[in-house]
């Protein structure tokens, strides 16, 4: 779950070194698009997924063009503040009555929940689908980044975007594509979230977004397998804290873990150490 959102953060950060705070809200928009697709138009599940993914990708590309591109050469903090601004805008704009409205909505279940026992552990089919979808997306992402031309462009831009531009990589297209791809994953995440926790509102993206980002940092930001590992650790620590301590301490434990990891490995579990140059 967190893994899908974390992947989007880590990709955008790897390419443009920007903490895209609006990512959690793109995730929220994905869940709402899926909600409308099911509730109003009664689309089948694959079409719902396509609507959410396409809508998110489009939204992210528009955000990138309008808000981040003009600031690419400005101080990084300006882009960061803009990202916070975009995030607030998405939350409150969609909370208007004319858009999605400020209430909680019940997300309709597109299929029945079946739980069965495998080796003493109760597994629902939703959990199975989430796991499959996460690893499917991870595999697809690894393929795109390491085996295709666009992926090569992404890696080049991440390394040095000026030089990549000189070598004939279309930097703008690559950055737009990265935002779109990251948002598409957030869209999948939004649909899955709606199915797993069937209650959505326009502020639902904040906490998952923050945790996913933490997961990305924990795993080593910019690293795709790192994001998944970080997300798994975050998810586990939260579940275990809820089970053995108290749910009120849940958020705290995850972040204590984060700080502890950062102290020993300042660039995350799978992050590369950068040597400082003068």
């Amino acid at each position, binding site marked *: 779950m967190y893994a899908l959102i974390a992947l989007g953060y880590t990709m955008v950060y790897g390419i443009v*070194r920007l*903490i895209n705070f609006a990512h959690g809200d793109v995730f929220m928009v994905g869940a709402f698009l899926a909600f409308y697709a099911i509730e109003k138009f009664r689309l089948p599940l694959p079409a719902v997924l396509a609507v959410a993914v396409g809508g998110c990708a489009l939204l992210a590309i528009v955000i990138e063009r309008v*808000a981040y591109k*003009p*600031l690419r050469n*400005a*101080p990084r*903090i*300006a*882009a960061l*503040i*803009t990202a*916070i*601004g*975009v*995030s*607030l*805008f998405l*939350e*409150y*704009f969609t*909370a*208007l*009555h004319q858009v999605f409205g*400020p209430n909680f909505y019940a997300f309709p279940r597109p299929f029945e929940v079946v739980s069965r026992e495998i080796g003493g552990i109760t597994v629902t089919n939703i959990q199975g689908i989430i796991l499959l979808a996460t690893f499917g997306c991870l595999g697809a992402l690894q393929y795109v980044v390491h085996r295709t031309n666009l992926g090569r462009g992404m890696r080049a831009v991440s390394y040095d975007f000026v030089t990549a531009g000189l070598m004939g990589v279309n930097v703008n297209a690559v950055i737009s594509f990265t935002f779109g791809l990251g948002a598409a994953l957030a869209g999948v995440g939004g649909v899955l979230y709606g199915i797993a926790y069937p209650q959505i509102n326009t502020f639902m993206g904040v906490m998952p977004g*923050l945790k996913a*980002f*933490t997961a990305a*940092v924990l795993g080593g*930001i910019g690293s795709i397998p790192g994001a998944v590992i970080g997300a798994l650790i975050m998810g586990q620590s939260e579940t275990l804290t809820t089970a053995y301590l108290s749910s*009120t*301490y849940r*958020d*705290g434990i995850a*972040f*204590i873990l*984060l*700080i502890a990891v*950062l*102290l020993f490995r*300042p*660039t995350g579990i799978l992050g590369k150490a950068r040597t*400082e140059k*003068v």
Partner: protein
Amino acid sequence: MGTLKNIGKALLPFGVIAGGMALLTGRELLNPYWVQIFQLACVVAVSALGLNLIYGFTGLFSLGHAAFYGVGAYTAALLMKLYVGAYGDEAFLPAQAAFLGSLAAGGIAAALLACLVGLPTLRLTSDYLGIATLGFGVIMKVIFDNADSFLPQLGGARGMTGIVKMTSVPWVALCLVAAVVIARNLVHSSYGRALISIREDEIAASTMGIDTFRYKVLGFTAGCAFAGVAGGLYAHLYTFLHPSNFDFFKSFDVLMIVVLGGLGNMSGTLVASFGWIFLLEGLRVALPPEYIELRWVMIPVLLIATMLLRPQGLFGFREFPFLRSRGDR
């Protein structure tokens, strides 16, 4: 003689602000609501000046400012509740003295905590420091939420009540003027130059013989002390504390103020603090009730537009004359 003259100079703006406000309220030209907003703006300005020291001058990316603000608020409120709550008379002189003491205690508590947090985390660089401080902010929020399990007076997730209203216009004006004077003198001292050199180039600074780690901790601690004092003022302004007032969104608010005003620019921070609070509250009054939700749609749009048009902040590098160093005046 020189010191006396300087104290007089610092007291002048204090007198002007406090006297002016008192006069206006006395003549009923200002209603209490606006006076309260003015006080809030001063409190936020003190806190933002602190973050400006941390991020604007020393270049340490901190997303946990609201946590220190909260520590100051809870410390000051708890002390006042324990030792002064029984009097119940705000005008009583010992109560005012105790208020000064608990504000100072709030600042000291925030500074001590900042030192504790800073010693390990300030070895991290740029964005990782931001995440670590953000994480610290979330941890503190969890602690505030569960605070009633070890100190029932703190209220935990239900919020802390029964705080005496002590914050008044003279108090906020005094704290703001003191904060401005201290920040200005710090920035233009040799300490301040060391902090700025760390922001510009840490490696070069350490080559010049500056103990960069020590100065980073120093800058961080000083900035957080400002936040602690501001927190104490806040607690006794609204007389109610809730953990959600100190979550990471509030850290973002302060960060936005500092960046909007211009990093490392005190005039910008002051103007942005007042502008931010008055815009936030002014829109509440100016907009008709059915459009009140539009407030948080317009603010981000303004924010994005400002950043796109002036990425270096509203003021850039220009300062008000009273904030420049002697040499540049």
